[in-house]
């Protein structure tokens, strides 16, 4: 196992290198010029050129790429073109809100979606199953921002139970932190619940046809025990896989959710950076997301071994 983990960590290096080269190249050929955005309407072409030189944007691709890689190797993600702040600091400011949103969303979505999927499988073909699947279709179909607006309208504007927007750091207390995350997490969790509930139902349906389940039933094992102890554990691998893959969905959804609820997270940082062509920030954030994704995949592989003792690396 340790050798496997070590090899997997090593394998992230070429992955990250390819991602880095890809992102850098993509930004290099993308249209747009941060120097023109900075200079503003009143600037002369000479002014724009001087800003471009100061930012080092006039240098050849390979030199810029080489310098960036050298910085990365030394743990430096560079300086934001627009804020003049280190990219590392900008990301650090934004990690907590996004991480909080993801954790709360994940916990909420899993705790709702897995029981929903299990119940749907148990009651397959009944109105309960149909209702849950109808909800799942709705979850996939309704855009995140619509759900966000509706929830904000109902729970913030009409009922005045929760805030419309914003984020309070965890160090300010649990409830202030949590109350700002309730609506965004439900909003973001909506799609995720749909995804997990559907896959849980499908795998559970398969597992519930197995002989050992029939044996358990014939032995008089309680239904809840069959569902949640025997069957669910054996259905868990595809569910865990989907939860992991769904993290990418979560990252994408967070961009919209953070905008709707004015949460200062990494999603908004990315969008703002893209619109302004703040190359170092875009590169830094994409690299971070890639790393997280690779790391999550590794974590899922390890979780497999816990769920299914037959799996060994």
């Amino acid at each position, binding site marked *: 196992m340790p050798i496997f983990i070590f090899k997997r960590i090593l394998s992230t290096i070429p992955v990250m290198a390819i991602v880095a080269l890809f992102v850098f190249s993509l930004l290099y050929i993308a*249209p*747009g*010029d*941060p120097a*023109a*955005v*900075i*200079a*503003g*309407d*009143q*600037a*002369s*072409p000479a*002014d*724009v050129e001087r*800003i471009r030189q*100061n930012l080092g944007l006039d240098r050849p691709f390979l030199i810029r790429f080489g310098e960036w890689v050298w910085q990365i190797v030394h743990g430096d993600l560079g300086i*934001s073109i*627009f*804020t*003049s*702040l280190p990219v590392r600091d*900008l990301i650090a400011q*934004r990690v907590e*809100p996004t991480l909080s949103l993801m954790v709360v969303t994940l916990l909420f979505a899993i705790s709702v979606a897995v029981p929903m999927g299990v119940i749907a499988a148990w009651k397959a073909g009944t109105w309960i199953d149909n209702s849950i699947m109808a909800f799942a279709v709705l979850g996939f179909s309704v855009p995140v921002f619509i759900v966000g607006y509706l929830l*904000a*309208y109902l729970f*913030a*504007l009409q009922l*005045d*139970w929760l*805030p*419309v*927007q*914003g*984020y*309070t*750091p965890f*160090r*300010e*207390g*649990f*409830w*202030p932190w949590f*109350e*700002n995350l309730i609506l965004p997490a439900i909003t973001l969790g909506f799609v995720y619940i749909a995804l997990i509930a559907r896959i849980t139902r499908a795998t559970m349906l398969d597992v519930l046809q197995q002989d050992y389940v029939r044996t358990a039933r014939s032995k008089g094992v309680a239904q809840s025990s069959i569902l949640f102890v025997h069957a669910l554990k054996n259905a868990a691998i595809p569910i865990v896989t989907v939860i992991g893959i769904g993290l990418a969905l979560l990252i994408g959804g967070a961009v919209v959710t953070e*905008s*709707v609820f*004015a*949460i*200062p997270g990494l999603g*908004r*940082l990315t*969008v*703002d950076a893209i*619109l*302004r*062509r*703040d190359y170092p920030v875009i590169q830094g954030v994409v690299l971070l997301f890639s790393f997280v994704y690779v790391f999550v995949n590794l974590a899922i592989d390890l979780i497999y071994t816990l769920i299914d003792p037959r799996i060994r690396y």
Partner: protein
Amino acid sequence: MSSKDKIGPSAGHDKIGLDRRTFLKTAAATGAAAASTGIYMPALAQSTAVKTLRFVPQSNLANFDPIWGTQYVVRNAAALVWDTLYGVDDKLQPQRQMVESEENSSDGLTWTFRLRSGLKFHDGSPVTAKDVVASMTRWSARDPMGLMIKAIQAELTAVDERTFKWVLKKPYPKMLLALAKNNAPCSFIMPERIAMTDPFKQITEYIGSGPMMFARNEWVPGAKAVFEKFKDYVPRKEPASWLAGGKNMLVDRIEWVIMPDAATASAALQNGEVDWWENPITDLVPILKKNKNINVDIADPLGNIGAFRMNHLYPPFNNVKIRRAILAAMNQEDYMRSLVGDDDNLWKPLPGFFTPDTPLYNEEGGEILKGPRNLDAAKQLLAEGGYKGEPVTCIVAQDQPITKAQGDVTADLLKKLGMNVDFVATDWGTLGARRALKTPPGQGGWNMFHTWHAGADCINPAAYLAVRASGDKAFFGWPDIPAVETEVTNWFDAKNLDEEKVAMKKLNKAALDNVVYAPTGFFKGYQAWRKNVTGVVKGPLPFFWNVAKA
């Protein structure tokens, strides 16, 4: 819990009375406190001794160097932190601000300025003439009026601690206007060590002598910017009027909460989570007007001028007949309705280039934009101009509602005229780079793009680069019309308002006859604030002085 670290101000907002959420929070807190003492402190227990005004600005404060970055949002924030030598009032007249007195020599070549006593920077150091000299040197390297002054500058020197002298090679009658104007970049005064920064590099220390200090440690670009009252600021005695007069701060702390989503900003204002929203979108204004806790009024009486610019370097718009065909066909009402909807308070037709209701506004030569539109006559002009169906590359930024709406109207207009439209939907960042290209439209260049100009920039030619027609040095599209430039020079040399008006009438006519650009109309926007906030005024930027919160 203090609201200090709140990013998005829902905690600790200053609602009067006990609302449902506060009640629920308190109830929840009681339970939570019983379970784990110390992890939560109810909002009701918070002190509201510090008066905090929460403001939603027009866009993100992505950088904070008002000379390096000329975005309006930077200028607006900078006006809190850095003071200016002069400031324009609501009559558009320059008034003394940091300056106590000035003297212009009889030949008009030497200006001597004396600073007010007791001026201090936020780090406690006194404001001296050396700081002013360094600041003016940096400003004059970037500002259009500053560049004009720099071109005729003989010397700029500090005479003593509070006096500095600006010696010119020829008179510059608009000196005080240049130092007072609110167009970016404004002539903000910084400490010498900061002002020595290359004007093309960003400053990293935000020390000014204005009424508020920038709380850099609380700055989250894209989310929040905080300003705290500068206790040692000495406001002028005169009543405040825009950038002039006494800048008395009646709140201790101003939090700028950046909200990229208009619907969220609207909800936050209605919910009392923010106090003032700089630019609510027109669609949401009816909802805000219905709310008994919210005031809605025009934000800036000087408004904005919509524009689409044609590339004078390449066919078909290198031909004045074709440019005039567009003017003859375009209906400004179509453009304005696409921007402001049915609200007639928000727009005016603009048969000219200058901001309506300002002294130099005139409609000389504007007949082509008035009256019923005649597409047949426009088509005739197109034919006379020799238009042969070549593609017209129209680049339209889709991420800016103002440019998108105008672009859609123009595309429709050109199609009605039988023109071959190559509609390039893009974003503002890409447009910003592409419009600077002078290559032919088929090789990465362009034929037309849309934009808009703040009315405050269009009250005279001083900072109005868009109306200039100096060829290579002109704004994108590069019109080369000597008659326009002659009148710009005449305006700069004018000795009184009457002379200025004569020059501007001629300029307006020459600019319309030759179509420097196509004005699509004059439009304004609203601002909205909660009724417990008083002192909000209309102006070209949000003025926070004398704004109080009950």
